[in-house]
């Protein structure tokens, strides 16, 4: 039982609009799982189904091996993309209320809030009203409220929006620490650089269907297309480039360093680099040789556009 959450052919329809079409997912325990997809792909619908805000028409969700039920609500923490707090309520009171709604006792909620408020250095906000806080400050409160009840599964929908880079980093570190403590995190975002940085697994949803999922490193390996960046030290333009062009598929090339360095990218027929390297041997000095691994962004764009 290594998956905290399994979705089995989940479908959901709103009127004539199909929001999810037989989407299956397996989210391993103790991982950060990126749920990606363009706007309107069905990510939010899927997340709402996991949170039991809405219910699927067909298919089933299993939480920790058992069919998803209302008792699981207290084991999930959800930070929605559309989020806010009661404007005229005091920070502490509001945090207590939301924590108690998640099933914490009042005294428990209080001591945990104190811990988190101290940790994020916002202890003196307790008696302020939300309308007196800036957007980023309110986001911090929301993050705390989401993680306070120590859920097994955390779902963050665009968690960094509204944060300045410093606070975004603080939150990112907190997310990583939560993962280290054993929490599983579903991470829905458009910001691909944070996907690269955080996610171990990803799933790509497009037009109501899951079109790709798995370990990010596996996906990258599958998507790499044997393109290599090569830098050669050469004496002069001695016809090496023409020679290479005749034998291999050179995508682009340029001379730098007053013609002493030839940089080019090459498309190899397979991931066996031996023939290419042995061809170069003796002809030039290989200054650098790197495989270009597609970024999550590239994969995202390529997959979505090819559909």
């Amino acid at each position: 039982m290594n998956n905290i959450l399994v979705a089995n052919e989940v479908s959901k329809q709103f009127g004539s609009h199909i929001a999810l079409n037989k989407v299956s997912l397996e989210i391993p325990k103790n991982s950060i799982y990126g749920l990606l997809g363009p706007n309107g792909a069905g990510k939010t619908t899927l997340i709402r189904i996991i949170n039991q805000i809405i219910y699927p028409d067909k298919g089933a969700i299993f939480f920790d091996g058992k069919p998803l039920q209302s008792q699981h609500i207290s084991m999930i923490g959800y930070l929605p993309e559309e989020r806010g707090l009661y404007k005229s309520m005091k920070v502490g009171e509001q945090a207590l209320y939301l924590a108690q709604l998640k099933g914490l006792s009042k005294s428990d909620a209080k001591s945990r809030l104190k811990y988190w408020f101290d940790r994020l250095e916002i202890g003196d906000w307790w008696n302020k009203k939300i309308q007196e806080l800036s957007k980023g400050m309110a986001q911090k409160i929301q993050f705390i409220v989401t993680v306070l009840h120590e859920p097994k599964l955390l779902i963050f929908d665009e968690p960094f929006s509204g944060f300045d880079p410093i606070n975004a980093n603080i939150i990112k570190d907190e997310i990583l620490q939560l993962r280290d403590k054993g929490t599983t995190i579903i991470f829905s975002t458009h910001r691909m650089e944070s996907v690269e940085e955080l996610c171990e697994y990803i799933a790509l949803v497009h037009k109501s269907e899951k079109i790709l999922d798995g370990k990010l490193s596996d996906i990258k390996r599958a998507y790499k297309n044997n393109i290599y960046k090569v830098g050669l030290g050469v004496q002069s333009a001695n016809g090496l480039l023409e020679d290479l062009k005749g034998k291999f598929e050179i995508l682009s090339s340029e001379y730098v360093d007053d013609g002493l360095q030839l940089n080019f990218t090459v498309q190899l027929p397979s991931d066996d680099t031996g023939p290419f390297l042995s061809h170069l041997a003796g002809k030039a000095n290989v200054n650098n040789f790197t495989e270009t691994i597609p970024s999550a962004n590239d994969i995202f764009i390529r997959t979505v556009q090819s559909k």
Partner: protein
Amino acid sequence: MSKLSLIIKREYLAKVRNKSFVVMTFLSPILMVGMVVLIVYLTKINDGEIRTIGVLNESNYFSTDFQGTESTSFVKFRDIDLEAAKDSIQKMGFYGLLYIPNEPDLEQVASRSYFYSKDAPGSSIVANLENVFKDRLRLQRLQELGVSVSDFESVENNFEINTSSFSGEQNLKGITEIKAFIGGAFGYLIMMFIIIYGGFVMRSVIEEKTTRIIEVIISSVKPFQLMLGKIIGTSLAGVTQFAIWIVSAFLMFGVLILVFDIDPSGLNAGASNTPGLVGGAAYVTASDSAIQLYANELFRIPWLMLVCFFVIYFVLGYLIYSSIYAAIGAAVDNETDTQQFIFPIILPLMLAIYVGFFSVFNNPHGPIAVGFSLFPLTSPIVMLMRLPGGIGEGGVPIWEVVVSILLLIITFIGIVWLAAKIYRVGILMYGKKPSYRDLLKWLKY
């Protein structure tokens, strides 16, 4: 603490701590009292003004008939013509001029008389003048018929028919109206409460949508729990407000008694005598006995039953309407979009009040009254107007009460179910002003 009670507590505190709520609670009784005082004061000013009317009497009659009263005084003109009299009236700023021409007999004098004034005269002034003429004419005609004034007065009578129910209880004229009025007060209270607190529920839902807290909350609780908690919490705040008003009314009453040194035992005497009245009624004087009978009748209104039914109809009616209000709040993004949906809710409430006052007062058990007291959207108000007449014989038939409450309960379940569906979908919809067709579609989601 269960989630529902948490929500109720929050909604209640959010409402009660609200500054405008606090201000309204303590200000509106003062405003009400102030308004009554103002109206009484203005009426007094209006009545206190003395109008002066000039009388140009050229006839041989009415020489002593026009005597000043509290609100009018008469100034008699002599030996000038009509135009001169009109001129001087205007110059002196008098209210008007009564011109009585010289004619051979009283009938002609009366028919040729005129009242001149700058503006159209007030009806009470005209009536006073007319009464003088009428009395005079009546006297003359009586004399012509050879009837003495004392004979005529002995003919005068103020007859009122005695009414009784078949079981022999004496019915008092006007008691139906009084009872309907008491019921009407209850009904009116329900309507006001629904409109005010339904509106609060709606605004509170809209607030949760606009602050975007809604999705945070419904990932912890079911939308239905949130809706129910909101409705209950808000109405408890309303009940608190009413309780404060009632208590402060009693306190003010107590202060009044102390300040004006009214003997409260005198007030209670009538009521405490009533149960033993049956035998003693014969000995009290005529007017006393009528008052006692009314008191007796009011005492006999089944107050306890009435209050119980008030609570039943109030709770059911309020829950039906406020869940509709909650659904409306969920469907829209801001308050300006609510108008198209609110009108259809207010309509049955207004209808109930008007039907109540125009039909139930006249005929508490007629077909219209019965129909509207069964129809679930109007029954909380209309049935309460009928109920002070009692249940069973002479009052509302038992089956009507039972059917009315059953229909109300069925409607309540149906409406809350529908409203919860609209609410559940609506709270997650942003940026679109929904039409009725959209709402229908949401029911199928």
